[in-house]
C-alpha cells in the first residue's frame, strides 16, 4: 500500500510538531477517531496499524489501512468540520501522536515554510487517496454493470 506519510516535512519540522504532540495508546478494536466527532486534532500513527472505516446505512466499509507515519483526522482539521469516517486500531497495541489543531495552527503562523511543506505533503497524501478510491469505485461500478 502507498504510504500516507507527510513526505516533505524536514527533521526540524518534525521536532517542532512533536514538541506539541501527546502519545496515546490504543488496544485492538478501540476507536482512535469516532465518525462524526469534532475535528480539533490530528493523529500520526507511531506504532501498529489502523483501519479507516466508513459507516453507510448499517454497513461498515474499510476504506484504507494506515501504518507507521500515516496521518489521520486531517480532513476534519482542514475543513474545521466533523470527521466523516472512523479510525480503528488493528493491532494489539497501537501508538499514535495526538496534536491539537490550535497548536498546529500556532506553529504554522510562526513558521510559514513549515506550513507550506505540511499542506503540500497533505495535498499529495489526499491526491493519492483520491486516486486509489476513484480506482476502487470505477471497478465496483464496472462489476455492478456486469451483473
Amino acid at each position, binding site marked *: 500500500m502507498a504510504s500516507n506519510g507527510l513526505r516533505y516535512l524536514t527533521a526540524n519540522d518534525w521536532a517542532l510538531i512533536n514538541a506539541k504532540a501527546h502519545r496515546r495508546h490504543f488496544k485492538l478494536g478501540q476507536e482512535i477517531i469516532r465518525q462524526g466527532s469534532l475535528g480539533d486534532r490530528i493523529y500520526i500513527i507511531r506504532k501498529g496499524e489502523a483501519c479507516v472505516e*466508513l459507516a*453507510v*446505512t448499517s*454497513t461498515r*466499509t474499510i*476504506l484504507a489501512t494506515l501504518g507507521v507515519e500515516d496521518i489521520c483526522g*486531517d*480532513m476534519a482539521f*482542514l*475543513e474545521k468540520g466533523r470527521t*466523516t*469516517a472512523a479510525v480503528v486500531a488493528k493491532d494489539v497495541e497501537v501508538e499514535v501522536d495526538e496534536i491539537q489543531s490550535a497548536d498546529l495552527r500556532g506553529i*504554522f503562523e510562526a513558521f*510559514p*515554510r513549515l*506550513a*507550506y511543506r*505540511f*499542506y*503540500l505533503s*497533505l*495535498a*499529495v497524501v*489526499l*491526491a*493519492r*487517496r*483520491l*486516486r486509489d*478510491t*476513484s480506482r*476502487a*469505485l*470505477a471497478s*465496483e*461500478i464496472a*462489476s*455492478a454493470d456486469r*451483473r
Partner: protein
Amino acid sequence: MTNRLLHLTSNDWALISSKAQRQIFNMGEVIIRQGSLGDKLYIIRRGEAAVELAGTTSRAVLATLGPEDICGDMAFLEKSQTTAAVVANSDKVEADEIKGEDLRELFEAFPRLASRFYQSLAIVLARRLRDTSRALAQEIAAKKRNRLD
C-alpha cells in the same frame, strides 16, 4: 462550488495571474488530454468545462467546472500523467494556464502564499475524496444487499 482555492488573497491572485496565460477553447475542445504529462495548472475564468474519464468504450462525466475552479492539479502535485480529460462545455471557454515551474518559483519567494495555495488545494481534494468515498461505500453496501436478496 467545490473546486475553488478558497484561502488565496486578492494579492496572491495578482501574483499568480501575472504568470498566467489566457487561453480560449471552443465547445468540445480538449483543455487537458487524459494521459498527458501535465506540469501545468488551469483556472477556468469563463464558461464551463467537463471532467471526463474515458472507459474502454464510453466516457463518463465526473464533474462540471465553472469560473474560478482549478483543474490539472493532481498531475501538477504528483508530477505525473493526467488521469482524466477536461473538455470545454460551452462556447468560448476562457482558462488561465500557469506553468508548474512558474508557480513553484512564486512559492519559494512567498511561502505564506504557498501555504495558502496548498491548504486550499488540500481542501478541494478532501471534498472530492469525501464524495468519492461515500459513493464507494454506497456501491459496496448495495452489492451486499443484492447478495442477500
